[in-house]
């Protein structure tokens, strides 16, 4: 193999240096976002003091827990220049599986059901990871495909029927909203996920390798990082989290059907984008993902409080995402953004083009 094409592609990736101003914004982005969220909460609190009550804050945290957890693993994926569109479908499939498991074996302990959901999710994620890592297929295409497949499988599995709260054992439903030291299990799990992923990202080789792959896949290869293996487990992790959230979602809302969490993958990605995680890879950290998810939850929970029609929710979310990307984009000051991973370019192009 000649070195020439790789040298060319290194040159293509070298435009990632930021200006000093951009660096400043990047370093201060999370505190700024946290300040913005606090301001927003206080502003809403002025209009509707009930929003500041402990009960309402508790609701806010509980509502944002699932988005936070999924945004955390989605962040890992985006940092490697990937994207995982299949999380919502994966969530639905694992959720439906855990609901059916609990329905048919009511005496199974909840911990086993959770473990089963986690394993199903992990497996579904590893399928993505294998296709993306070892076959080097573009992540957006692979997860687009698996999104459809997983969503369809939910229907096949359930036969199109709903599993409602009457069919679920009581302790299955009770777990997510049960309280430990005043906070719901959902919030504790989100906190646990936050700490665990912070540790992984900051203090393990695995986590640092992901940033290396996202910053420059070719250079990462040169220093001996096995990108396929890393990608396999990144998507596996994203899948496992989706599996866990699948159980939590189904148990929390006490219903499972084919369309649960439809379109939720875009909410999760939006949370990451608001949190300053660059879709071009290599940039982002756990606090960004958490703050992005919290921001979305604050908007959703505040609207009814200040008597704005809930129909405005989606439009406002859109405005927030667009403002966030504009602000983050100014911070990064990069001339040529790539929307889709460049490092698959040569290989994908060769499939679709005829080779003489």
């Amino acid at each position: 193999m000649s070195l020439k094409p790789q040298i060319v592609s290194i040159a293509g990736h070298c435009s990632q240096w930021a200006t000093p101003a951009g660096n400043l914004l990047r370093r201060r982005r999370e505190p700024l976002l946290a300040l913005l969220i606090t301001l927003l909460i206080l502003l809403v609190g002025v209009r509707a003091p009930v929003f500041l009550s402990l009960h309402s804050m508790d609701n806010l945290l509980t509502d944002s827990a699932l988005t936070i957890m999924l945004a955390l693993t989605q962040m890992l994926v985006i940092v490697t220049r990937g994207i995982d569109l299949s999380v919502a479908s994966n969530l639905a499939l694992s959720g439906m599986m855990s609901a059916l498991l609990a329905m048919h074996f009511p005496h199974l302990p909840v911990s086993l059901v959770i473990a089963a959901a986690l394993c199903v999710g992990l497996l579904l994620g590893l399928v993505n990871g294998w296709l993306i890592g070892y076959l080097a297929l573009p992540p957006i295409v692979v997860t687009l495909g698996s999104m459809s497949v997983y969503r369809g499988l939910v229907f096949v599995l359930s036969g199109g029927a709903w599993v409602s709260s009457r069919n679920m054992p009581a302790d299955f439903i009770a777990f997510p909203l049960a309280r430990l030291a005043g906070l719901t299990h959902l919030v504790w799990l989100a906190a646990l996920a936050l700490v665990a992923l912070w540790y992984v990202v900051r203090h393990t080789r695995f986590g640092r390798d992901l940033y290396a792959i996202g910053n420059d896949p070719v250079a990462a290869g040169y220093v001996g990082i096995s990108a396929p293996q890393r990608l396999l487990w990144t998507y596996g992790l994203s899948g496992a989290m989706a599996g866990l959230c699948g159980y939590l979602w189904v148990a929390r809302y006490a219903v499972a059907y084919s369309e649960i969490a439809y379109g939720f993958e875009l909410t999760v990605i939006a949370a990451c984008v608001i949190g300053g995680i660059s879709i071009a890879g290599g940039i982002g950290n756990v606090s960004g993902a958490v703050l992005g998810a919290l921001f979305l939850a604050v908007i959703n929970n505040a609207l009814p409080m200040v008597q704005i029609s809930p129909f405005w929710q989606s439009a406002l979310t859109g405005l927030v995402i667009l403002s966030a990307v504009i602000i983050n984009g100014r911070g990064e000051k990069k001339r040529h953004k790539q929307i889709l991973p460049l490092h698959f370019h040569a290989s994908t192009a060769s499939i679709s083009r005829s080779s003489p």
Partner: protein
Amino acid sequence: MNTMTEAAAVKTSRYEIAERGKFHVADLLNHWECLLALLLLIVFAVNCVLLPNFLDLYNLADSSFNFSEKALIALPMALLIICREIDISVSAIIALSSVTMGMANHYGVPALGLFAVGIGTGALCGVLNGILVTRFTLPSIVVTIGSMSLFRGLASVVLGDQAFTNYPDLLAVWGQGYFFDVLPRPFVVLVVAAALFALLLHGTVWGRRIYAIGNNPVAARFSGIAVDRYRLMLFILTGAMAGLAACLLTGRIGSTRPNIAMGWELEIITMVILGGVSISGGAGTIGGVMLAVLTLGMVTYGLALANIPGIIMTIVVGLLLLITIAVPRLLRGKRKP
């Protein structure tokens, strides 16, 4: 061997350098379009054998209603993806266009004006996407995820829990009418649009430049192509086509509801990718996209005739997508360089 020595004798050179490679039947299999055509034939044949009513001309024509509107958007989407951009907001543009058409209709705009309103709204949405992507140099996937939320949100703000109905007949004529009592009008619109797009992409300088931008935007800019202007125009074109699709769709279903065209963006992108357009840009043909559209259309139609629920279709589509990109890679047995 013999011909080669003859040619060498005439040209007084030891080697013959042909304009293009020699034709081999085996090379056809490397052509994505040929594989797709083969797949389409197989799907068609299997359906013919298994389903007695499949070859009914009227049924076959009517099956095109299911994919014509999506395919209309798949055409400009192919150009966008070839150009290394993407537009996730197309289904939200349909919703917003349909809502503005409903409002215009409510205020008594004549039927022809509704088409202008629908297409115009779509084009405006495209302008917003395009300006955000080009002026602010933002990644289009993020911009359009945001604008999708915005457009769909604006549509639902106007609609609330209501629906617009009572559209004029002209819309229904184009949305669900026929030419000569057999050819569905949306399908004819699609075929005409496909021909125009094929001409644009494969027959004009603009098309060559779109490939150039997709292969290397920096090099394209250095060679004097107004890259950002092309990107902006493609986003506007995509918006306008989504507006046109909104006109046909509104006419076909006769009403505007908040969940109109929900989830179409991913189906449309699937059509484009299945059609052999490289997601990393620079490669793909309109012919391939149309073959993918027809293949998916025939599969859906066959499944519908066989009484298989529509959601099974999503599994088939997803598997088709995964298999078609994974199998060539597995067969070649080589990883990325």
